[in-house]
């Protein structure tokens, strides 16, 4: 397991480095002079030149990349344009809110999706199976911002059960959790459908496997066969799917944070784009990338922990 983790971690470092290279190329290829953008139309040529030197834009491109690369690995993402505060600090302030949102979304999708999919597979062909099938497609088809707006209208505006906007009182965990319910539902609801379908499909496959027949031939109780023998194998593809799906959840988080006026990295990037705060955009996207790679890594480690065959392959 240790060897597996180390190798998988090395792979993650390579992926993040490549992402940095792509991100840097993107910024470099965007037409226009970042210094001019930062200083606005009324700056003089001398001021622009000074800022260019300060930003290192006079250096050859590979030196620029190397500086960006080494600084980024040490946590220095430059300073943002508006307040001149370090980008890393600004992003880190917002990161916990987004992490909480993603965690909430995953909780919804796992807590509802796995039991529903499992139930549908065990009751294959029955009415519950068909209802789960229809509901899955329905929630997958509805975009997260539509879920967000309707959840807001129904539960916050009409029924007044839950708060409409914000992230809750700082330091008050209960209040923050209450504020998390609707946004995380908006992020996670579509994934309930994906996971239910995925779990159903892989459960059906596993239940046909020879070792399940063996388990039945040993007279094991049906519950033990379903949960200990079949589900533990059937959730493996789901964990991998979730790892990849976190990318999509991160983009849903942008909508959820805007609709519910929550702080978070998505809202931060959205505001930064509107104010053309490029260092902040770059920094926030890079942090999001690292987050994605890290969560993927965790998903893979979970698969490794659950499946001895994966562990031994590395």
């Amino acid at each position, binding site marked *: 397991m240790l060897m597996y983790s180390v190798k998988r971690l090395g792979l993650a470092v390579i992926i993040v480095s490549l992402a940095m290279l792509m991100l840097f190329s993107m910024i470099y290829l965007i037409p226009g002079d970042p210094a001019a953008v930062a200083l606005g139309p009324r700056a003089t040529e001398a001021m622009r030149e000074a800022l260019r030197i300060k930003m290192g834009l006079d250096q050859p491109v590979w030196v620029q990349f190397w500086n960006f690369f080494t600084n980024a690995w040490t946590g220095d993402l430059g300073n943002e344009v508006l307040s001149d505060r370090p980008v890393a600090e600004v992003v880190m302030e917002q990161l916990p809110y987004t992490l909480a949102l993603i965690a909430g979304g995953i909780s919804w999708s796992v807590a509802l999706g796995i039991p529903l999919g499992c139930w549908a597979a065990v009751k294959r062909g029955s009415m519950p199976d068909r209802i789960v099938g229809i509901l899955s497609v329905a929630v997958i088809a509805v975009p997260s911002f539509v879920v967000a707006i309707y959840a807001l209208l129904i539960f916050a505006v009409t029924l007044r059960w839950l708060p409409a906007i914000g992230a809750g009182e700082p330091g008050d965990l209960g209040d923050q959790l209450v504020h998390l319910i609707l946004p995380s539902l908006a992020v996670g609801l579509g994934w309930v459908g994906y996971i239910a379908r995925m779990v159903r499909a892989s459960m059906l496959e596993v239940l046909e496997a020879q*070792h399940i027949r063996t388990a039945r*031939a040993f007279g*094991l*109780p049906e519950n033990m066969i379903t949960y*200990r*023998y079949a589900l533990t194998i059937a959730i493996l593809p789901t964990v991998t799917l979730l790892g990849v799906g976190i990318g999509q959840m991160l983009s849903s988080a942008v909508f959820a944070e805007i609709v519910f006026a929550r702080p978070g990295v998505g809202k931060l990037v959205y505001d930064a784009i509107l104010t053309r705060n490029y260092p902040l955009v770059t920094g926030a996207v890079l942090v999001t990338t690292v987050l994605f790679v890290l969560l993927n890594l965790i998903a893979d480690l979970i698969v490794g922990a*659950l499946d*001895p065959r994966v562990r031994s392959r590395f």
Partner: protein
Amino acid sequence: MTVLTIKDLNVTFSTEGGDLRALRDVSFEVPERRIVGIVGESGCGKSTLINAILGLLADNGRIDGGSILFEGQELTALSAPKMRDLRGQRISTVFQDPMGALNPVLSVGRQMQNIQYRSGLSRAEKDARSVDMLRLVRIPDPEHAWARYPHEFSGGMKQRIAIAMALMMEPALLIADEPTTALDATLEVATIELLQDLQQQIGCSVLFISHHLGVIAELCDDVVVMYAGEVVERGTTRQVFNTPRHPYSIRLLECDPARQAERTRNLPTIPGEIPDLRRRPQGCIFANRCDRKVAACDELPPDVAVGDGQVARCILAEAV
């Protein structure tokens, strides 16, 4: 004393192309402490027979007639929970494919623990019993092998582990469904010797299914020859192998590569194919491939007792 008595068993599957009668009037016995071999080509109903005994027929299959008497209990009338209590305790099974027969994400020890869930033993006692069983099937270093996962063992070891699991509760009947087919020749011999050994120690009966005639002849006391869902002939191994009476048994034995006296590039085969079981012929099931066919073969042949315990389902059995 017989452990298992199957009488006139019929199994039908409903398929899209109509009802498929997979077993027709199957009868045979497994006496105490004896090894009974079932031999027949692929698709002759061996697996259906096992599933019917175990109560694990697919959802579209049903037993329509006949009885399966196991230790005095009528299995066809047994409730699902009662049937489950028998499986793994009184009737155990070793399947063909050792690669897929064990759960890949649970350690061998955990799986052996689960099989003993009815035993009422403490966890430590169960584990000690598991280690003993692993030692009995000659798994090296059983104390450590216990904690390992199926993919860490070779095919032959996995099959031995499967045998250990099957015999752990000291069943009255062990069903071995082609347990050596997936193994190479040397392992096959070793596994069969092991099975023979353990059968002696535990004193159980064995229903041994194989299409390998040599293995059947070597291992079994009695033989049941199946063809297209029917028992065409049964008797002691000596009777069936030395004086087969059903034309199918005769032809099947002629086709055994081990029986070829001369070097040949052309092994004998039985011309024709198994009939479509959805349109099972009214008469003898083997008639369309039989070279001794007469007009009377269009009627269902009786089970003819041709010797002491030897029975053949052929009107010509006496004459052959």
